């Protein structure tokens, strides 16, 4: 029981952390983002250098959509930095054991949405500009995370007031 509560608390803290972090990326300039990313990297994702893309077969979503959404997440979270090279379509297909056409479609969609840029003969790179759609994408993420937060909070019987309190605290902590 104690272990379970502890786990719940951990999960809550994690998702709140993401929310607070995301709020920042919307409003605050680059060095703050860099700072937050630094904390984020050190606290949340400890020591994972490799690009992780996980494909589920039982997940109803088509595979190319799973790839695009995960790469989008990686770009938004800053794990993939602007200008950074993405694995080649063929390598990705090989490693994930999927068809080249699937990865090609995923990359095309990402390019269309402005997340990546493809240069023929050189490969694909994370796009440099962080314009309106990134903000929108962020907002969507925030909502998603908040949803998770609320669900977790409800399970743990944490009231809305308490939740707002924690959030304010975390938010202000980041501001300092």
């Amino acid at each position, binding site marked *: 029981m104690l272990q379970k509560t502890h786990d719940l608390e951990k999960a809550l803290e994690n998702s709140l952390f993401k929310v607070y972090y995301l709020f920042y990326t919307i409003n605050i300039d680059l060095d703050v983002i860099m700072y937050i990313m630094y904390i984020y990297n050190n606290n949340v994702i400890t020591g994972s250098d490799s690009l992780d893309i996980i494909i589920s077969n039982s997940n109803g979503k*088509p595979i190319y959509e799973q790839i695009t959404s995960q790469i989008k997440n990686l770009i938004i979270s800053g794990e993939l930095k602007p200008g950074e090279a993405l694995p080649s379509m063929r390598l990705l297909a090989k490693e994930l*054991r999927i*068809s*080249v056409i699937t990865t090609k479609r995923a990359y095309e969609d990402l390019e269309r949405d402005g997340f990546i840029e493809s240069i023929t003969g050189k490969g694909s790179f994370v796009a440099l500009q962080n314009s309106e759609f990134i903000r929108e994408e962020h907002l969507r993420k925030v909502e998603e995370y908040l949803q998770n937060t609320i669900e977790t909070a409800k399970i743990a019987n944490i009231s809305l007031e308490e939740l707002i309190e924690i959030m304010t605290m975390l938010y202000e902590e980041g501001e300092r």
Partner: protein
Amino acid sequence: MENVLEVKNLSKDYEGFHLQNVSFSLPKGCIMGLIGENGAGKSTTIKLLLNLIHRDGGDIQIFSKCNLTHEKAIKEELGVVLDESNFPDNLCARDIDLVMKSVYAKWDQNVFSSYLRRFALPDRKRVKDYSKGMKMKLSIAVALSHHPRFLILDEATSGLDPMVREEILDIFLEFIQDEEHSILISSHIISDLEKIADYITFIHKGKVMFSEVKDSLLEDYGILKCTHTEFDQLDKELIIGCRKNQFGVEALVRRKKLQGKFLIDSAGIEDIMLFHSRGAGR
């Protein structure tokens, strides 16, 4: 995109079996899975590509060249694995190396021996004493050791255990890393192809039922699950194949064509194939 293989209106008449107007094309850099039940015409098609049998009509272009007039030049750049090991029993891998050196202009002994090492194939042991998986790996090593641009495999993974199949699929995915390389692979084991194939061509009773991008197949088709009365009200044109049981009906449909609210599950390649051959009639 440039096509590595183009088949147009290919036909071949046997007693009791006709390959009729088979047409499909494979773009460069892609993997195509040729599926269909035993005796549907997969092997016949592949034999025609290789000119092992004579066609009764149609046209085949490999590397944009006619497969009859440029036969030798095409085969220099073709890696072929047939459904069984075809080396005389008494030969060992070293012998095969020497034989192939004078068969292929671009035979690469270093590549061959690196594949032998990778597959853990003893080079002095006679082929006779190899296991089935080893024989298949040997054939694949031979097919890849003369720097081919196009691999043609006929039932190459059938009858092998999952570990070996996995290993072989890895090799194929490695081969395709070069965008100039393409693969045509026939199999009745669809799970292998479902993962790695870019295109699926389904042959049924000597005819091509479809030849499409795999992802769009998976997207387009769905399995409708409904009651008998619902089913009877449906436009039969929409039904590609169905399976009725006492308590309901399952039918393969094209998702977009079906208007209204229905319970539609996603269909795998195997489902699509099974329902197609089942037909709407039964």
